[in-house]
């Protein structure tokens, strides 16, 4: 449909010859050269003689035609044999003038042709560009339709998942509260597992939805939140694979001021970090959460540390990339958890990173900037 433009062609347009004019059209210069010579010899030379006579009386004397007119005498004299050299000089002058003029004309013609060629080529490129722009626009439209369809499908599925998983975890929770069932440890454990797994899948569905939302560059719905409440809600989240007793909270978070942030997104970030720690190190892993304000009081630094096996140094640069951890042996990961955390933290204007030493656990840190202006008088 469209021809491909080579880069060299774009930068250095190719033309037919570097300067073809004089080489190919030298014949066209012969006539102006002869005409120029004749003009110099026949016209310029006698005219010059007339002028010289008028200027130099000795020349008039040399002409020696007292009876001839002041005009006719020098003209006739200019064609005398002893004036041949002078005639030739004027002829050559005429030749040079007309030849250079002809050369100039040839060069102009060549340039005109080159410009016409360039204009034709530009026109063709413009047409190709317009075609490609149209194709791109069409592709963008198709992509937007596809994205909309995907989003609607995802939301439709998420809606169904939410209802179904809500039923599973809700009924499991209700059964757990029945004394006759709760006393049977196996039944209670199975029901607890059902409820936990339902919440875990729910968490993954929410990750997918929230990740898509954050990636759409939609700004988080911020409100003033208490860091302590945020931690409490995170550690008591049903989706966590461990009970809250395995998660320790540091002391510094109590001194943190209220944050302007999206509480649901930050809770998912904390839940994901805790889940990751437990998922990769086993249920006996101890996780410690804390947060503190920096010295300049411009941001709050959150930390989530575990005492597990740590993360190999070669994996550290890519752990926040989508689907970076999907090839792990457990197969228990959507590959979006940490990418989601990064997207959320960055959407809040913060940073996230990980420090780890093999066999000494992993330490995840992220920051959330503190708002500068007091909000609602707080």
């Amino acid at each position: 449909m469209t021809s491909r433009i080579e880069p060299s062609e774009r930068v250095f347009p190719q033309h037919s010859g570097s300067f073809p004019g004089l080489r190919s059209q030298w014949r066209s210069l012969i006539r102006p050269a002869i005409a120029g010579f004749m003009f110099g010899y026949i016209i310029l030379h006698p005219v010059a003689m007339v002028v010289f006579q008028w200027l130099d009386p000795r020349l008039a004397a040399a002409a020696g035609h007292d009876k001839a007119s002041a005009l006719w005498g020098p003209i006739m004299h200019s064609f005398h044999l002893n004036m041949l050299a002078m005639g030739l000089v004027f002829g050559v002058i005429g030749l040079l003038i007309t030849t250079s003029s002809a050369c100039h004309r040839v060069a102009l013609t060549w340039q005109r042709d080159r410009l016409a060629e360039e204009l034709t080529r530009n026109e063709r490129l413009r047409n190709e560009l317009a075609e490609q722009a149209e194709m791109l626009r069409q592709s963008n439209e198709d992509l937007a339709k596809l994205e909309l369809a995907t989003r609607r499908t995802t939301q439709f599925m998420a809606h169904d998942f939410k209802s179904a998983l809500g039923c599973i975890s809700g009924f499991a929770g209700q059964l757990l509260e029945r004394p006759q069932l709760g006393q049977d440890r196996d039944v209670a454990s199975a029901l607890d597992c059902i409820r936990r797994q339902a919440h875990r899948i729910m968490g993954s569905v929410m990750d997918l939805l929230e990740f898509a939302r954050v990636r759409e560059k939609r700004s988080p719905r911020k409100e003033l939140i208490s860091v302590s409440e945020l931690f409490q809600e995170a550690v008591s989240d049903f989706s966590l694979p461990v009970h809250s007793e395995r998660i320790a909270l540091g002391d510094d978070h109590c001194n943190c001021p209220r944050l302007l942030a999206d509480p649901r997104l930050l809770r998912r970030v904390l839940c994901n970090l805790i889940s990751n720690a437990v998922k990769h190190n086993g249920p006996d892993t101890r996780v410690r959460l804390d947060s503190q304000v920096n010295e300049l009081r411009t941001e709050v630094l959150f930390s989530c540390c575990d005492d597990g096996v740590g993360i190999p140094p070669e994996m550290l640069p890519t752990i926040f990339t989508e689907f970076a951890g999907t090839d792990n042996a457990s197969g228990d990961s959507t590959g979006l958890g940490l990418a989601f955390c990064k997207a959320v933290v960055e959407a809040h204007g913060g940073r996230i990173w990980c420090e780890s030493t093999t066999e000494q656990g992993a330490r995840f840190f992220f920051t959330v900037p503190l708002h500068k202006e007091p909000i609602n008088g707080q």
Partner: protein
Amino acid sequence: MANESVTGKRVLVVEDEFDFADLLRSILERAGYTVMTAYNGEHAYSQVQKARPDLITLDIQMPKESGLFFYRKLKADEAFRNIPVVVVTGLTKDDRDWENLIRTFMEPEHVPHPEAYVEKPVDEPRFLITIEEALSCPTSGEC
């Protein structure tokens, strides 16, 4: 488990998912409410006309007549305008679809917002607190 202050209060659960409706019914009945169920907007409106509930929990995305159509009809009816409504939906409050729905259905006709929004899956204790608050302090009435 049952709370005496809510005993006898009638709640209409409008939800197209039978199982989820059963879950809400179970949660509410254990808390002491009397529960009726409807599986679409039309059915819900006939239920309301038959026996006026004290509160309605309403799903948005339903076949036949969506929850918001029902909600608009309810708020347009003088007799039922003051019934508090708690929307229980699978839509996330930040979704674009959610915003579009609100913009399309609520804002042009200045329909008052429901008493509360609850996202599925419901957290039982929080859900019950929301229901109690909506009953004790409806947006349309006085606390």
